[in-house]
């Protein structure tokens, strides 16, 4: 991996300077950073840098929950007699996200292709992206279940971030990657440097990623049934995934009679009733079909549909590997497919 070139202005700052900077940023916008929530590492709003769980790796849930929240109100509906009024509820909050790892950033870019670039643009997601500034933190090395290098990513890839941080000894190299990011930097207070971030320690790819056009050939392989037999359809993989985006739209009543809200919330194609139609018939009633669909969507359907080119929609973050209760491991599946190809 080639060391990142110094094409963007870079500053060298200490941990203390970083903390002071974050404290000041928290006063201007809502600052979201990794926190310890009863032993679980999660992105949460922080009032100051002391609330951040320093030494964090990657939070249990990805950054997607701040752009594509687990529940979101789309519309408020008011019915009085035969009259109906619809009120849009578009997000307004200005945020800064701190500590976003390259895999999560890649996840957001993958969702951008769906929600923003694929017409029509989703106003809820795109507003949140516009209103957010992302301070990413590159990784120095890969975790035991990480496999970003196997899906075309890298632990020190800062592509997409507004500001990129690289740990170097006890200090940080801060690179402004976009105009938006530059607005956050107190340029008069910090000193520019020409130090270049050292490349991260990378693991070799686990497998040769099966070419996209080889996926249709494996559709009826016995392997899917073997893999999915222990699946519980628990959905955790989809919910912790930085790029899974299936959602449900529902109308629900509010406590005031005649008032309702139209909400959308996360769902997953692995659940039994995902393709249940009125009348009771279920498509993909077989667990094998559902699990296979999720893998195919990640590596073939999504890239085809939303123009990801040769990339998959998987960022290699490894959350699904960590959190599957029955150890269904996407890397095992990919290694097997590479072997079959």
């Amino acid at each position, binding site marked *: 991996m080639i060391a990142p070139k110094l094409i963007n202005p870079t500053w060298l700052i200490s941990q203390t300077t970083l903390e002071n900077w974050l404290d000041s940023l928290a006063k201007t916008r809502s600052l979201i950073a990794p926190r310890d929530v009863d032993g679980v590492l999660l992105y949460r709003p922080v009032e100051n840098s002391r609330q951040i769980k320093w030494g964090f790796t990657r939070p249990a849930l990805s950054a997607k929950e701040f752009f594509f929240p687990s529940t979101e109100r789309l519309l408020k509906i008011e019915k009085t007699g*035969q009259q109906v009024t619809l009120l*849009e509820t578009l997000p307004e909050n200005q945020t800064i996200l701190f500590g976003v790892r390259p895999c999560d950033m890649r996840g957001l870019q993958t969702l951008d292709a769906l929600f923003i670039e694929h017409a*029509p643009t*989703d*106003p*809820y997601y795109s507003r949140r992206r516009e209103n957010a500034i992302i301070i990413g933190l590159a990784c120095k090395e890969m975790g035991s279940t990480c496999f970003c290098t196997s899906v075309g990513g890298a632990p020190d890839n800062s592509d997409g971030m507004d500001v990129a941080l690289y740990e170097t000894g006890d200090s940080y190299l801060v690179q402004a990657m976009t105009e938006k990011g530059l607005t956050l930097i107190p340029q008069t207070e910090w000193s520019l440097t020409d130090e270049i971030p050292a490349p991260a320690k990378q693991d070799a790819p686990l497998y040769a990623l099966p070419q996209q056009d080889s996926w249709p050939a494996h559709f009826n392989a016995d392997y899917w049934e073997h893999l999915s037999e222990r699946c519980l359809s628990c959905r955790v993989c989809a919910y912790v995934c930085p790029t899974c985006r299936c959602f449900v739209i529902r109308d629900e009543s509010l406590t005031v009679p005649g008032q*309702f809200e139209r909400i959308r919330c996360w769902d997953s194609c692995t659940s039994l009733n995902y393709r249940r139609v009125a009348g009771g018939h279920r498509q993909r009633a077989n667990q094998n079909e559902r699990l296979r*669909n999720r893998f195919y969507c990640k590596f073939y359907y999504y890239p085809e*549909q939303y123009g990801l080119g040769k990339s998959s929609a998987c960022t290699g973050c490894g959350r699904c590997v960590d959190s599957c209760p029955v150890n269904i491991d996407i890397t095992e599946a990919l290694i097997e497919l590479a072997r079959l190809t």
Partner: protein
Amino acid sequence: MSDNPMKPYLGRLVEVKDLATEIKLFRIELLNGGSEAFCNCKPGQFAFVSAFGLGEAPFGIANSSEHGPYLDFAINRLGTVTTALHELDKGDIVGVRGPLGNCFPMDEFKGKNLVVLGGGIGGAPLRPVIQHVLDHRADYGKLTILWAARNPSLLVFTNEYQDWRKSPNTSLHLTVDTPDPTWDHSVGLITDLLKKVNPSPENSVSITCGPPIMIHYVARLLSEMGFAPQNNYVTLEARMHCGLGKCGRCNLGEKLVCVDGPVFNMEEVGHLLETYL
């Protein structure tokens, strides 16, 4: 479409009438800018109809935009949203979001013979095709309509059959699985009827809409009869939520029924239909 594609237009029910057992026709007049959005909608497109407070569901637009300015939907009462819609009356307000999806390539069909096969409520999205052909009769060749249902009380648009038959170079063939005493047309599945009618594949395209199992068997039979896959069109349905290609629910392999369809050519989806059942 409005600026916010998740926000429906409001529509007023100008007519609600029974079409068949548990199937009603809803005629909707669009309000607040909706008419402009839908004035150019094409046969094959669909829209989400909202029963506010309970939800929305996708339905094929059952009239051609030249028969307007209203939208017809034929809705079968089966689940939460459809039951709520069935309880509405003339004058009630619903939501309409669309027009969504692609359309039948009516221009490409010009000069060709059309074989239209509708099973049950599947006839609804085919009605705008029939209306369009009848309105521009000279542009199209022979029109052969095969209409099927499980029993006579489930046939839709029965009061229009006479007009369809009156049109030149047009024939209508009916069949039911289970007849009643007054039934004097064919009895049997639509595939039996298709064999009986035996339309020629010469310069013809077929358009099928119905339950997945029907689409499977009709497609197979058409291919045996010599209809090339690229001349067979289907309009598919799937459980949908956004209709905009975002929520991922309606996928058929790498295709999304809401944006790549609902109209498909058998050449592009034939191999995917095994996952559709």
